[in-house]
């Protein structure tokens, strides 16, 4: 018996050893590269930037975390949380009819078509999708063209004049940022809702109808509560992706920062890696809390 085949039989006879040999490389990678980096991230957040030299002081301090409570930084965190929440609610409202139709009415070819129609935008290039909205929302773009056609320019002007969410044009306002977020994360909301709607047993709906419930009552008391974990599962994606994004608000939005942009700016131009790391830890903390709540609401069973 040659050495390699002896090794193979040994591994085969001792499955524990085989499992270990298979697991070692990927675990090594994830522990060293991924968890190691996350550890480095925590470490960095306890360092601080020296104001005079502009260098990072590699000493344990809470100064960087204290910095997070500056008025401007609190604003950044709150702004991001509000945006993530509003985007999540809007995505759920737009996604539900699509998922409902696909789950309960589409059959055969129509069903496959629906599936592809949701999957294609999900997988198409992230940057290209953002770029598309820059074209759409530009002052000379299609939205203004349609508005002029329908004599509705006043409506856009009225929206843009709303303080804090408005701006000089749609592509430089929070309304624009919000639209792009909803657009790019929408498929992530549709798919889990559709899955949970498909799992609602038809017998329950029949029973409800037989017992004299109106369609609206059946929807409110039977279908929606059973599909709700799917909505929560989808919200994990829309919330988390909005929370960490820095490219969308940079391309379509105004100059006030969100968490992702703060991280990007601090680690880049200002070289303040500790503060960028502390902001990232805040995002991790928020996501951790969100996931705990989502788990309680049964979202993980709907994935």
């Amino acid at each position, binding site marked *: 018996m040659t050495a390699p085949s002896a090794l193979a039989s040994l591994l085969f006879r001792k499955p524990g050893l085989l499992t270990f040999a298979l*697991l070692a*490389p990927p675990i090594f990678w994830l522990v060293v590269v991924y968890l190691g980096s996350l550890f480095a991230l925590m470490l960095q957040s306890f360092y601080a930037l020296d104001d005079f030299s502009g260098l990072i002081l590699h000493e344990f301090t809470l100064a960087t975390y204290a910095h997070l409570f500056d008025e401007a930084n609190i604003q950044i965190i709150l702004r991001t949380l509000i945006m993530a929440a509003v985007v999540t609610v809007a995505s759920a409202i737009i996604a539900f009819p699509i998922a409902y139709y696909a789950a309960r009415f589409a059959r055969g070819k129509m069903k496959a078509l629906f599936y592809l129609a949701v999957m294609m935008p999900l997988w*198409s290039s992230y940057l290209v999708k953002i770029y598309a909205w820059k074209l759409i929302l530009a002052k000379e773009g299609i939205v*203004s063209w349609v508005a002029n056609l329908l004599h509705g320019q006043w409506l856009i002007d009225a929206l843009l004049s709303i303080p804090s969410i408005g701006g000089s044009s749609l592509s430089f306002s929070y309304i624009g940022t919000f639209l792009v977020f909803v*657009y790019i994360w*929408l498929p992530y909301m549709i798919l889990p809702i559709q899955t949970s709607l498909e799992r609602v047993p038809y017998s329950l709906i029949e029973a409800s109808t037989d017992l004299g419930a109106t369609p609206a009552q059946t929807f409110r008391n039977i279908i929606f509560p059973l599909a709700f974990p799917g909505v929560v599962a989808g919200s994990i994606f829309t919330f988390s992706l909005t929370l960490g994004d820095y*490219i969308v608000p940079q391309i379509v939005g105004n100059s006030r920062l969100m968490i992702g942009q703060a991280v990007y700016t601090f680690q880049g131009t200002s070289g303040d890696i500790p503060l960028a790391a502390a902001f990232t830890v805040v995002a991790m903390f928020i996501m951790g809390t969100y996931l705990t709540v989502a788990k309680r609401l049964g979202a993980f069973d709907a994935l």
Partner: protein
Amino acid sequence: MHSEAKWPLKLAATAGLLFLHIPLGLIILYAFTTEEKSYQFPPPGLTTQWFAKAWFDRPDIWPPLYLSLEVALISTLLAMILGTCAAAALSRARFYGRNSLSLLFVLPIALPGIITGMALRSAFDIMSIAFSTWTIILGHTTFCMVVVYNNVLARFRRTSGEMVEASMDLGATGTQTFIYVVLPQIASALLAGGMLAFALSFDEVIVTTFTAGQQTTLPIWIYGELRHPTIRPITNVVAIFVIAVTFVPILFAYYFTRESES
């Protein structure tokens, strides 16, 4: 149940789907516009000149394209090896800590990209690692691995281990068993996972900006053009190219996994 949907539902579903698809159509339309300084709609005229111009007159597009291809190829290859190992081990074995390991394997995709990016950036800074092609690959392999792992794991769960036992009982070596028994069983899932990983890596920008330093991948080039536009229709031509490069593997992946399930 087999009643027809009511019109408000139909309307809402149709409007939602249109909302998902019109923007991508516009990207294609704007690649043919004659207007290069603004996003005027409707385009004042149509032309195909930008495709030739992008190909011949823009040497700045090629190096980012090559870098993106290089990163995507190497990351995908590494991810296919590591992801398959992980899936093979976790699909059958039962041991203490298995559930936490499963969680660890999906973490890089479950957490927002900015966390992975900033974590790597922090680590490179602490260890004084200079940015290079390999720092980009390090980040990409981490999330590509998850995609391959998920696809191959699903396949392993649907195949039984008896074939492997039979092969070994009949005297095949480990290598023979792997090539003739295991590989054919997982091949299409592995290929599908690899294709998705490639598409993911080729298009990735959030993690990449933190691990690239001064290097420019194709998505970073596009990001630059979005912030400081030069000749706008050229960006659209590159965008169409990116859509094509990511779409083809995804359609293949869809086809591979569908065929084997029916």
